[in-house]
Every structure is written in C-alpha cells, then in structure tokens.
C-alpha cells in the first residue's frame, strides 16, 4: 500500500484532462496540462472512498477508507484510514510528498503489529489495494514528465472534447502513452486511455459523476476498466470537504496509531 490521496488525485486526474476553454485559438497539449497542473485544489481535503473491485466473473469486493490531505506549499501530507474489509480495518497509511522531486516519505501502521513502520516509496507501478489504479495513476504526474500533443477535436457522449496524447519522456515508464478526452464546455475530462509498454490498449478510465464542492471541481464517481483482463474498479467519493482547517497533528504517528 503506497501513494495515497485518492480523492484529490483522481480529481486532478480529471482536472488534468481539463483545458482552459473560451479561447478561439486551439491550445497546445502542453498548455492544457500545465494549466491543469496549476489549478487551485484547496489547502486541505477530507473524504471517504468506496472502491468496488469487479473481476471477469462479475464477483465484487468492496474497499472502504477515509482520507485527509493537506498541502502547505512545500510538503503535501496525506493520511488514509482503512475502514473495511474487517481484516484490514485499523490499518493506516501516511505519505509526505515534497516539491522539488525528493522521494516521498511513507509509513504504514498495521494494528496487528502495533507499530508504525516506514516503507520504501519505490513501487509506483504497483496496484493500489488490488484495484485497477496504480499508485502512479493516483498521483500528480507533472506535465513536464510527458510530451503532449493535441490530436483532434471530437464529440464524446454528446460533449465537444479535445483529445490529447501524452507520451512519457522516460522510456521505462509503465505506459507507452495515454490519450485523454476533455470537455470544452466545462474543462472537465470524460475519459482516458492507458497503453501498455507494447503500445496495446490496457485500461480505460471514465468519469461518471462530478460536481463542484466548496468551489473545487471534484470527481464523485469514476470507473477504471482493464480491457486486457476484463477487471474493473469503481470509485465513489462521499463526504468530500475542502479547506476545513485540518491540523498538522492529523499527520503524525499519534494519529496513525489512534485511527480515524
């Protein structure tokens, strides 16, 4: 379990495929991603996430967690408390990520071991809690990490969209490219495709529900489908709140051990 902040990250993922609209001139893919990366997202955030994992037989597994995040400009601190299933309840995970590219600090608290343990932040390609989202999918990928190209404009689900292709500068990155669809009317993303290292379509992310919460665009329901193994993950966010003044002590060893 590494790399949390699912709510903000998925929001940013959607926002990351939003562009500034209103201009008659067609923006470049790079400009789209830079604008999105710098969008305001609040000083702090909290909310609850329910993940439904659906395998090819249609069997479902539920994962439920509560998350808090805070960004003071230099350090973004996040803490997650696992609520279900019963065998992981009480587990907590904390991540501090730094501006400037320093490696994240990550800790996990397992109630059976009754101590907080530092873990390596390596492993961004691992899947988060058995879902179809890797830790990197949930993180904030800097636009300078990819080359962006505006492919075309087209209508998707009745919405006029920009279609942007992003190719990683690191040849060893887990995806060979991603393609995103961005609604022109409200600058929100509708869809993203992920291609594996052989250039084959791997996963499709679709945004099902979104709205403004405390003035910030927030994804409330999304679905990631792995087309190669027909496994799907649905994420639903509830009780999302921004700028509630979460204190620093929420992101400490004490908080991890006491639980949510």
């Amino acid at each position: 379990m590494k790399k949390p902040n699912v709510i903000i990250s998925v929001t940013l993922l959607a926002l990351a495929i939003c562009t500034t609209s209103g201009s008659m001139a067609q923006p470049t893919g790079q400009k789209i991603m830079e604008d999105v990366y710098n969008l305001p997202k609040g000083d702090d955030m909290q909310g609850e996430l329910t993940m439904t994992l659906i395998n090819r037989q249609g069997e479902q597994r539920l994962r439920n967690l509560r998350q808090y995040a805070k960004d003071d400009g230099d350090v973004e601190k996040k803490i997650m408390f696992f609520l279900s299933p019963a065998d992981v309840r009480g587990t907590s995970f904390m991540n501090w990520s730094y501006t400037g590219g320093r490696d994240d600090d990550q800790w996990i608290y397992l109630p059976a071991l009754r101590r907080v343990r530092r873990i390596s932040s390596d492993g961004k390609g691992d899947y988060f809690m058995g879902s179809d989202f890797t830790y990197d999918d949930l993180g904030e990928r800097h636009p300078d990490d990819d080359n962006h190209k505006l492919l075309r404009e087209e209508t998707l689900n009745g919405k006029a969209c920009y279609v942007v292709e992003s190719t990683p500068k690191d040849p060893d990155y887990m995806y060979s490219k991603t393609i995103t669809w961005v609604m022109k009317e409200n600058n929100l993303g509708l869809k993203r495709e992920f291609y594996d290292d052989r250039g084959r379509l791997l996963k499709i992310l679709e945004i099902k529900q979104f709205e403004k919460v405390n003035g910030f665009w927030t994804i409330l329901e999304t679905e990631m489908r792995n087309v190669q193994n027909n496994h799907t993950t649905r994420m639903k966010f509830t009780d999302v709140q921004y700028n509630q003044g979460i204190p620093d002590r929420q992101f400490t060893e004490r908080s991890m051990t006491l639980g949510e």
Partner: protein
Amino acid sequence: MKNKIILMTMLSAMLSLPAMAQFGNDNIRFNGFVRNYTGVLTNETGELSILQNTLNLNFSSRGDKMAFKVNPYLYHYTDRDLELGLREAYMDMYFNKFDLRVGKQQVIWGKAEGVFITDVVAPKDLREFLLPDFDEIRMGITAFKLNYYFGNSTLEAVWTPVFTPTQMPESGSIWQPRMDFPAPVGFDHSRAEISPSLENSEVYFRFSAMASGFDYELVGGYFWYDDPAMHITRHIDHQTQQLASLTLMPEYHRVSMAGGSISTPVGPFLIRAEGAYYSGRYFQTTNPMVQGAKLEKDNLHYMAGLDYNLWGITLSAQFIQEYILDYEEGMQNDELDNTMTFLAKKDFLREKLWAELFAYIGINHEDALIRPKVTYNFADGFEVLGGANIFLGDKGRFGQYKDNDMLYVKLKYSF
C-alpha cells in the same frame, strides 16, 4: 470458575451489543475473528501438533477526551484446558499534548522483524516457540503509559507495577527447549516469584521521531529480564565423590538496557538498524568452579536489515548478532551468536493470494527454521492459509526442534 465468568462476560457482551446500539451506545465498536488452526507433524508419528480454535474479540470506543479497548480471547484445544484471557484491557485519556493509557496493553518497540532487541516491554508467550502470529506472542502487561508529543516526536514513559515473565512451554510439550544435564535434575521455584511492589516495578523510556528521510528511536529501561537464569546447585555423592544430582533454581534478575533503532530509505532500499546494551544479565556456565553455574555479564544485541522490492516481490534480510562482553570459557552461550532472517513475499490475483517465505538461519549451529506459507482470501474477511514449518540442523535454537517439522492449515474469518 474463573474461565466460566470470563466466558459468560464475553457472551453477555456479545449479546448485549445490538441492545447497546439500540439505546444509543452505537459508538462502541465490535470486531474480531474466529480461527481454526490445525497442524500435523511430518515425522513418522504423524501426530497433530496443534488443533486450536480461537475466538478473538475487540470492544472499543473513542471520544474526544478518552477511549477504551477490551480484547478478550479464547483458545479451545482438544487436548488442553480451555484458555480464556485478556490480551488488552485499557483506558486512554487524551490531553492536548499527551496521552495516558492505563491497564493491560501491548507495547511494541523497535524496527527489527521477528527478533526482539529493544522490544523489551512486552513479554513473550513462547509456548508454541516462535510460530504463532507476533501479536499473539507478545503479551499484554498491566502498565501506565504516558506519551508526550511535540512536533513529529514522541516521548514515551512506561511504568509496570507487576512483572510478567516469558511464558515457556509446559513440561512434556514438543516446544520445551532441550536441556542436557550430566545428572538427574530437580527444580526449586522458591526464588521464581517477583512480588508486586513499588520496589519491584519496572520502568521504560522511549524517544521516537519521524523525520523527513529517516525515523529513529532511543530507548532505555530498568526491568526484570523476562527469562530466568538457572542457579544450579550440584549435589555430590560423598561415597563415590561423583555428581549425584542437580537442583535448578530459576531466578529473575534486574537488568538495565539502553539502545536505539533507525530506518531510512536509500535509493530503492530501506535500511533498518537496531541495537541495545544490556547490563546485569546472567548467563549459564559449565565451569564447576563457578558457584550457582551462572555469571553476570553485560552484552550487546544488534541488527542490520535491508528491505527491497523487486518485480513486485517484497524482499527483506536481517543480520542479527549477540555479543557477550568479558567472555569466559565454559559459558553455554557463544561469545558471538549470529542469526540471519530472510523474507520474500508477493501477492497475486489482486491481493487475493499471498505467497510468503520467511526463514531464520542460525549461523553458529548451522540450523534454520524455514516457513513457507500461502494465504488465499476466499472472500472479504475470510482467508485460508496453508504453510509449513521446517527445522533444519540438529542443535541450536532451531535445530533442537528437528523432529517438529509440521504442515498446517488456518481458516480465519474476520468480522
């Protein structure tokens, strides 16, 4: 009678939960697990090494200023008495900068995995050697624990008015450590009791910090060493002038300990280290000139470990060394005792299936304990675990159990 009372209390509590929720006490949380653990020896006897049914419950409630937790457990065996107990039963009081926890509690320290270096507060239940889960090996102690917080640092003080020793296997157990003596032995337990008193209480301190880039702990304590030293009296047959018998008198001794631990990521690796200096420990000696057959010696105990993730496999290795200062010939322990541990763990099927291999390697005696296991999450909260415990060598901490190789299955439902 005592067991019946606890059992009735547990049942009453379980039955009253819906009622508590109905009357507004729905902030009391209730969870736990039931488990069947069946193990069979792979030697020619094919005997069941364990057949255990477990019920473990947690009742807890937390408010802004206080909390409580009660963790009763029940072990049912076919060949032993029903065992009921409280692993933890404590209350918390929360203040602005500090917390106070009072009652029976498990206090876990250190950064080492599977070995106990600065992790000295919780005594160990070794009735099944090191095979149970570690939260079941570490026993709760009745203590007052104060945690003072400043920034990302914590100062912790623990006072335990009652000494709890290591729980050793009963006589006749396959996990009883091998003890070879040159003559028949008898036991005298007259000095094995440490009566609860202020003078006999134990104190522990810890300073811990979670910093950017590394975590560390500094610890210290003045306590009774959990394992007894054997004061051995030799009885000589005056007619033959030969050793006729031995009287073993288990005796606990005060020790002082100071140590620390650190963990830090270095590139893709996570490096862990832990060490402690013990003053006042007693070690057995075969030197017939030493009265009581035990010597007081200071010793060092330390560990260096490395964690790494390769192709989704969690890999971990630790080197542990125990060094006796001012060593004397004839001591039963080696001057330097070296152990290694290895762990490899990987999940499959989106965290439904876990494969793990953990091993202790005793370098001095060329012995080992190899523990492969596979866990399958059949459904959320329900897991099936199959594994083996393989003892290699014929002496040393692990080799002494060479006849105890076992296969086992655990079925566990968490709720």
